[in-house]
């Protein structure tokens, strides 16, 4: 087990190194940096000014030197300065993380609370009208873009209540947070809940066919206990893996949802930074996303072994 954990951590480091190179090269692949954008926006280009700005930002150095400079700083907790605000990148990124984390946490909670019970119901009532309705609903959930679902919700709010629930000021209490983030979390979590519902259903169908379920029924265990106690316990295992993968990948949905609901989280910040070629922000945020995604995957794999004694890592 210990060797497994060490091997996984080393592989994670290797992957992170690969991602850092990939992102660094991608961002510098094309001509056009922040200096070009600023100067073309200003409408006048004085080559000396532009070269001066590039020198100040270190953009005139060889790409390998730039890369080493970034990674060296990263090791010391120095993420560089945002090109746009000229504040330390860390100060720009850190305050935005809790906002996105709360939204993501609520979205996952929503997805699990909705997806798992409905998936079980769908499997238990296989091939009934209820099953068909749930399957079509979950397939629609996978087909709708998250930002459109968000916009639809806003439209409905505008039509019924005359006001729309978008972010105006930071919430103070836990209740306020939940109130403020409930609607966007549902919009972004709906897709995950659809995925969870589908996987729970198929996983349950497989388990319900097994002998020990028949045994449980034969000895007279109540239907509810068979479904939720005996069957779901085993059926939930692959679902947990999916939840882990989804938690890491929720970022895609969060990007568009934060944009729609005007939430000042890291996901929307990343898009702004990409548009402005604010390299220090983009690089570090992408690394952050990768660390979160890889860690969640790792934790889920360990959890998997803890929950299922049949699984052993060596």
């Amino acid at each position, binding site marked *: 087990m210990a060797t497994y954990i060490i091997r996984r951590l080393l592989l994670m480091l290797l992957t992170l190194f690969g991602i850092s190179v990939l992102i660094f090269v991608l961002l510098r692949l094309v001509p056009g940096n922040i200096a070009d954008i600023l100067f073309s926006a200003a409408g006048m280009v004085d080559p000396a000014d532009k070269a001066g700005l590039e020198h100040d930002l270190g953009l005139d150095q060889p790409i390998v030197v730039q890369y080493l400079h970034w990674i060296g700083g990263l090791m010391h907790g120095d993420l560089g300065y945002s090109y746009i605000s000229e504040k330390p990148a860390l100060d720009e990124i850190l305050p935005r993380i809790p906002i996105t984390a709360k939204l993501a946490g609520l979205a996952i909670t929503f997805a699990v609370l909705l997806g798992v019970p409905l998936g079980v119901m769908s499997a238990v009532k296989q091939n009934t009208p209820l099953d068909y309705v749930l399957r079509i609903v979950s397939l629609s959930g996978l087909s709708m873009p998250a930002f459109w679902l968000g916009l*639809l919700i806003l439209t409905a709010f505008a039509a019924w209540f005359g006001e729309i629930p978008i972010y105006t000021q930071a919430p103070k209490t836990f209740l306020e947070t939940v109130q403020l983030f409930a609607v966007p979390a549902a919009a972004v979590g709906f897709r995950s809940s659809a995925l969870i519902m589908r996987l729970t259903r198929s996983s349950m169908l497989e388990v319900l066919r097994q002998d020990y379920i028949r045994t449980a029924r034969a000895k007279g265990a109540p239907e509810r206990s068979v479904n939720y106690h005996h069957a779901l316990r085993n059926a939930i295992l692959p679902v947990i893996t999916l939840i882990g993968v989804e938690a890491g990948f929720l970022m895609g949905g969060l990007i*568009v949802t934060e944009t729609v609901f005007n939430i000042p989280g890291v996901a929307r910040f990343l898009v702004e930074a990409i548009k402005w070629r604010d390299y220090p922000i983009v690089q570090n945020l992408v690394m952050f996303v990768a660390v979160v995604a890889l860690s969640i995957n790792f934790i889920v794999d360990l959890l998997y072994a803890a929950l299922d004694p049949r699984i052993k890592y060596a």
Partner: protein
Amino acid sequence: MTTLDDNEIIATAVPPAESLWRHLRYHIARHPLGVVGAAIMAVFVFAAVFADLLTRYDPTSTNAALSLAHPSAAHILGGDFLGRDVYSRIVFGARISLAVGLGSALLGCAIGTALGLASGYVGGWTDLVIQRLVEIMQALPVLILALIMAAALGASLENTILAIAIPLVPYSARVIRSNTLALREMPYVEAARAVGMSETRIALRHVLPNTLAPLIVLATAQLGSAILTESSLSFLGLGIPEPHPSWGRMLSESAAEYVRTAPWLVIFPGVAISLAVFGTNLLGDALRDILDPRLRH
């Protein structure tokens, strides 16, 4: 002792056209939802191909009088801010969505298949390097990688296709690799090697065709996710540039403020995206059941 009639052997080996039709009818009867999905896709393909015949207005021509016009008999889905006919833009948008969806799903699967086949069949160092590469790409959410690629490459139709195709590569590479690993040990591969076939030829002639079923299933699923990713990219302003009518961009133009004032600008493009992806998902589910029952969820 009975001898088999030669004709009988040929008859069982090559199914006549009628039996193929019967085969198809059998699957159609068993997968009604798949048929619905295929029908939805057929409608979108039809709209994309005959967009000029289905619309009366140019999707890019502006008309101040039509700015934010309500849906009416002349303009059944209303007009956008610049006074362009929304119905025309949605019909022509099918071209963009299908072009980007098909283009990036096919390109992504082609690259992924090449990598997966090399990884699984050659093994050793090749496998190790390709697998690390796949892991690196898969550690980032598809939309984030696509966003950065799109920003790095610049806005154009071709670049959008490329920006969406690359993040999809690891998924097909993984599926093809695991299939190849199993197929590599098959007796017929050994037989081909015994008769002196070259390794490249075995990989391309004997292994690759047998990965076709999971590949078709995967490509269909990726078609849907490519359409969704394009709409997100365009919504965020990093996808298809003007003046192409893209469903995602139509929603970005009409975002927050039109939620109150012109809800038809918000509703219809989203219906088009969702319906198209819903069609591919229904079709994909049915294809998976037919072609690759092991993958069934």
